């Protein structure tokens, strides 16, 4: 479907001077950054930093007000449908139909992306096997635990083979073991399939030293780069310390940000 060929070095995601307001409250104040192709990228920020607003804008669920977002070289403003084709999303809030079976949820998603029945079934089988859920295919989603539901949402987000997988605080609500398993699972996807993943979180123990990190606070990017480099730059022993130092500098009232 994708007719344009992107240069291998072109960024997978470009956020360019994006602003967003909720009435008088400024949620994003000229945010700009880019993600290279492939690998695990983390968008960090405390609650209220603007992460979910940014994801809302990237997915087109929020209407853009200023700035531009490009995914795989396609502008969200000019070609939103092509962008949606390139994007797989796992939302913070569960979005599965609990009364449908695991397979039915996947087939519904596949149909919304225009995939034929046969192709959809093949991809369902493939993704369910990858997530270790093939034995649960006929069960209602209501019967799955939180960790398995998240895995199912990842399987669903990958069905249409997106270029960029976005997980918006996907580990929220899971116990420590499930959180770690999910994190490792997504990292394995990056390694094995060369996928580009954007993982948003406020839980810093989910970040590895060699992860690429964008740190958002009070609607602005306060730092970006490898997690270990950020620690060195801020002379911090841990990412938590670096995060605390960088985010406490940005305590600007929401009305004065934009």
């Amino acid at each position, binding site marked *: 479907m994708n007719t344009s060929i992107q240069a291998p070095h072109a960024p997978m995601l470009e956020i360019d001077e994006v602003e967003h307001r909720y009435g008088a409250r400024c949620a994003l104040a000229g945010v700009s950054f880019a993600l290279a192709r492939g690998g695990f990228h983390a968008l960090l920020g405390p609650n209220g930093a603007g992460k979910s607003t940014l994801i809302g804008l990237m997915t087109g669920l929020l209407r853009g007000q200023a700035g531009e977002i490009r995914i795989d070289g396609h502008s969200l403003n000019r070609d939103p449908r092509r962008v949606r084709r390139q*994007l797989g999303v796992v939302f913070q809030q569960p979005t599965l139909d609990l009364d449908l079976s695991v397979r039915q949820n996947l087939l519904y998603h596949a149909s919304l*992306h225009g995939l034929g*029945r046969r192709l959809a079934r093949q991809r369902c089988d493939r993704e369910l096997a990858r997530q270790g859920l093939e034995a649960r295919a006929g069960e209602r989603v209501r019967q799955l635990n939180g960790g398995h539901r998240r895995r199912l949402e990842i399987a669903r987000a990958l069905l249409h083979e997106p270029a960029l997988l976005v997980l918006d605080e996907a580990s929220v609500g899971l116990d420590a073991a499930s959180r770690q398993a999910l994190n490792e699972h997504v990292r394995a996807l990056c390694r094995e399939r060369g996928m580009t993943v954007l993982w948003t979180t406020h839980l810093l123990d989910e970040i590895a030293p060699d992860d690429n990190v964008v740190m958002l606070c009070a609607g602005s990017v306060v730092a970006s780069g490898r997690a270990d480099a950020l620690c060195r730059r801020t002379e911090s022993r841990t990412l938590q310390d670096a995060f605390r130092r960088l985010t406490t500098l940005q305590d600007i009232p929401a009305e004065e940000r934009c």
Partner: protein
Amino acid sequence: MLAAYWHCFLGVGGREWRRFVQQRTRFFSALVRPLLWLVVFAAGFRAVLGISIMEPYGTYIVYEVYITPGLCCMILLFNGMQGSLSMVYDREMGSMKVLLMSPLSRPFLLLCKVLAISLVSLVQVYAFLAIAWGYGIRPPLVGLATAMPALLLVAMMLGSLGLVLANAVRQLENFAGVMNFVIFPLFFLSSALYPLWKMQEAGPWLYWLCANNPFTHGVELVRFALYGRLALEPLLWCLGLTVLFASVAVFTFNLQRGQGLARPG
């Protein structure tokens, strides 16, 4: 590309069908409601309301025959509103986001939704007509076939109206109140239960309300179609109103982008 749209329609339609099959109580309540009107209320009203010879009936008819098209439309009305309720539910539960992440056009997705709800409604209407047949309400067989496109159009009209309401209602809890202010006036201020000339006797303003009620046009379209007749004026009204409601539904659906779908943070 056309195949992608077809697969999408099958997916949306399949989901509505599975929901309908899983919610058996919904099916039974959709059947019991008009059957109560047909068997219990109509028996009482028959004595009070004499129906004279009128179009499209060629002879005197019993009251049950008169209200059958209205009861068919009642099923469509309740189902259309049920469908819109499911849209509000989807929005609250987050599954609306899955629909909105589709790369296919949003007006098409909404059209799929309305058409799928309408087709499920048709199944219920014909189940009701089958029971009514056993009860002695027997329109001509050809009428049962000619009524199908009329029923589908009315279902689309009411389903689109339901979507407009779904877009207007912010929270699930408010939905019951809105429904009371929509379903009951639409149903009672129409020709479903009594002919328009009866309303004329009651008062000119009441007659005006009934004559201009979209539901009246739907009922009359179905009434004539059920006897193999085309009612042109109601048909044009229904077509026009379907386009109007569907356009408003698409417009307000786009307007509400970001409200309740993505949380600030």
